[in-house]
């Protein structure tokens, strides 16, 4: 399938909370169709194409996917007895309505999510709001707001609660996995045999060039969306200086400019995505990854820079860590990037990505970082090597000063090539 097969004219995003109804949405065995609730109740009113045509009746080739599912969901159960119906509570036990688990199904993308009963909430006739949890052996515990703790209540059954309730009862269900299950990518060794050998640069020449460039640079250097002052660039030469977001992002931006097939998904955008998810998807999904070949994703993990590279051509997710440690796990970032990958693929091809074909590369054999501050330089240099398909020069305590000058020089837009 090529990109031109689909010409997607419009898309809409949603970040919605839904209150399901036991009577309107659920079947007797606790199955709830997401098509009937989420799609129709929340999505259909939002459908509006770029020319402001409204209504799903005018839309075709619809594709739909979830980015994230909620940890908690709520199902209301109407209180028939309170509404004055003839039915006595004994004839229709409350237990029948209190499903221990509900299963949400989406026909469009053929997935199912299962939730377990967590608590239920109702308001009594004397205007007390009660929160009750079902324990083992049909026992209950009730939350006491004054002591901020749960207390077990003895001698009650579900019918007692339904009789006491003056409003419909809200059942609260929860699940553990709030992202759609992701297949773990197959680990694969790093292959760079075809890369060109690196050529070392003459340190004196590089230093002279940097001095010349910095003296002739403007006080404020604009690099794409990033702004650095001369002082910011000079600070990168200090071996005890840890690169900040602006400095590393600016360098990676220049690296991405070396080819039209490379995109930078910068550290600030990634942090925003981690924090806010897709509340503002327009910024996060601005560029279509699958129309490019490489995506650079720098991430600052507890004052340590790591770099993920999404290699679209090779179908690989590459992790570069200059200080690998078995104690640190980057699974959370890996999952987030795979989620992003799924969404980007969906946006481009309107179908689900086959992650089984993708590989995960993390054992990159480069010189291990031997100080506490040069992780950013390592990442910047590796990114440039990966984009230019050139081998990485060793970076250690004796050469770090030279690499920092090269880094500064590259920030100033110079790309020294003369070797020793």
């Amino acid at each position, binding site marked *: 399938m090529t990109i031109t097969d689909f010409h997607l*004219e419009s898309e809409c995003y949603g970040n919605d909370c839904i209150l399901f109804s036991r009577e309107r949405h659920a079947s007797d065995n606790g199955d709830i169709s997401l098509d009937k609730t989420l799609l129709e109740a929340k999505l259909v009113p939002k459908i509006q194409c770029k020319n402001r045509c409204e209504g*799903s*009746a005018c839309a075709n080739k619809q594709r739909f996917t979830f980015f994230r599912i909620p940890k908690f969901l709520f199902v209301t159960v109407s209180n028939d007895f309170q509404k004055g119906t003839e039915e006595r509570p004994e004839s229709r036990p409350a237990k029948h309505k209190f499903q221990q688990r509900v299963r949400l199904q989406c026909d469009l993308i053929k997935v199912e999510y299962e939730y377990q009963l967590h608590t239920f909430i109702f*308001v009594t006739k004397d205007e007390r*709001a009660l929160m009750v949890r079902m324990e083992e052996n049909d026992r209950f515990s009730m939350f006491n707001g004054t002591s901020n703790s749960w207390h077990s209540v003895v001698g009650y059954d579900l019918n007692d609660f339904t009789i006491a309730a003056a409003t419909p009862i809200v059942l609260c269900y929860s699940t553990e996995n709030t992202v759609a299950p992701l297949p773990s990518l197959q680990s694969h060794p790093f292959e760079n045999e075809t890369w060109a050998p690196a050529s070392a640069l003459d340190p004196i020449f590089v230093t002279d060039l940097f001095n010349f460039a910095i003296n002739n640079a403007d006080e404020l250097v604009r690099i794409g969306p990033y702004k650095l002052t001369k002082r910011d660039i000079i600070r990168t030469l200090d071996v005890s200086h840890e690169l900040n977001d602006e400095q590393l992002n600016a360098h990676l931006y220049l690296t991405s400019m070396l080819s039209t097939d490379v995109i930078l998904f910068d550290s600030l955008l990634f942090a925003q995505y981690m924090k806010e998810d897709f509340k503002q998807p327009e910024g996060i999904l601005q560029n279509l990854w699958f129309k490019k070949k490489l995506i650079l994703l720098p991430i600052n993990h507890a004052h340590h820079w790591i770099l993920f590279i999404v290699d679209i051509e090779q179908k690989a997710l590459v992790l570069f860590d200059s200080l690998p440690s078995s104690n640190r796990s980057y699974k959370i970032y890996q999952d987030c990037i795979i989620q992003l990958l799924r969404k980007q693929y969906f946006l481009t091809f*309107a179908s689900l990505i086959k992650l089984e074909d993708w590989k995960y590369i993390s054992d990159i054999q480069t010189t291990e970082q031997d100080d506490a501050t040069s992780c950013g330089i390592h990442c910047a240099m590796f990114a440039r090597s990966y984009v230019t398909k050139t081998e990485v020069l060793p970076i250690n305590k004796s050469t770090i000063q030279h690499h920092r000058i090269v880094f500064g020089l590259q920030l100033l837009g110079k790309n020294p090539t003369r070797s020793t």
Partner: protein
Amino acid sequence: MIVIMQESLFLAPSNVKVFRSKPHRMLANKNLCWLNSSVQLVLSNIRFVDALIDSSFFKFHARISDGKMNLISFDQLDMHKELADFYPSLERVNYNYLLNILKTPIDKDIGELPTRTYVDDIRKQGPKYNVPRTRTYLPMIEAFGETSCVFDYLSNILIPSISHLIDIATIYQDHLTCSSCDTVHVFMTEQFSVLPLLSTNCNGMRLPTAALERYFLSDPSAPDRTCMSCGVKSREHEYKRNIVQLPDTFLMKFSGQEHFNRKDGSADAIKCFMENKLDMSGFLANDLICSPSYCKFEFQSMIITTTSGENNRHFYTIAKYDDQFYRCDDAHIEVIDRSFVFERSHSIVAAMFVRAKPDPVNFVSMLNRIISAENEQVTPTNYSMQNQHVKMVFQGALEHVASTTNKLTWNYIFTFNCMQCRESNH
């Protein structure tokens, strides 16, 4: 510093400052009954007076100097000049005028000069009518000394300013249930600060329930609509109009005609009885989960009109202070019996109800407890305490809590080709 004696100001047991005084006297004999009755209507609302005095807008702090003496002290300078600049000029004018009334001793009226200045200011800053085919604009409010429309003043000038301090928004939705695919569509959502009700055919009945029933009754003559989901146009569509949010202070105006005229829109020919208690549960959306007291309101005040001749309409207010009813007729304040209020029929123009028992449940704190870990301390969320809807209605609390966390929301994307555009492009 000016020190003014108030009739009865006390500290409620919960240490919440509460003003309880008699109604304020207003300037008489200047054709100002439209203004006087409206102001007396809103100032009977304790919640509003409290919110006004506590607002940071004023360099004005009511303080208890002595619990027994019931003294309120005012700073000489009333407005924060810097803060006042952030407010629209009309609101500034309104707040300043109301503040001047509150500062005036209870046994005196505000005086002619401040009232004349106020009327001039709202003519200048307030809404205006365009004279057709000219570029001339006439102020909605007539000049000082002439009668203006009480509806114009209430709806366009006074109430919009109040809405920033207390919760007065009633929201209702028009639903359509498709007979083919069972999808429920919300066709229209409307929000009112003052609910415009018709009292036609309500003669001798109890307001506001009789007028509310007519307003929220489904309309069988509504036109057919096409379902947005399945595209079918059906006569069996079911229309419903339901309230989805009730305010803390419920304001409504009554008109005898379909369209409100400037000077002749009131329902003076229709005489109805006023209800002391109002239960809105019958007009709420069926699936709204709220505590029963959310929809129970109590009478607070109303404006009544009397007519003696075509151009001789008069308005006065009946207001409740501390379970005592007062007839406020410009400068004349008189204690009346509750039987006069509820057992006699009046030509009612506007009414104000307040929630009888606010704050019995708090769904927000419950939801926060659910989404927090077992032993985690729940931090109280920052939400407007003025709006009880967030706390007392489960759906309101859910929307509020969902905006602060991603544990309650579905995050999805939907892509489609628009057939309609494609056809027109073709």
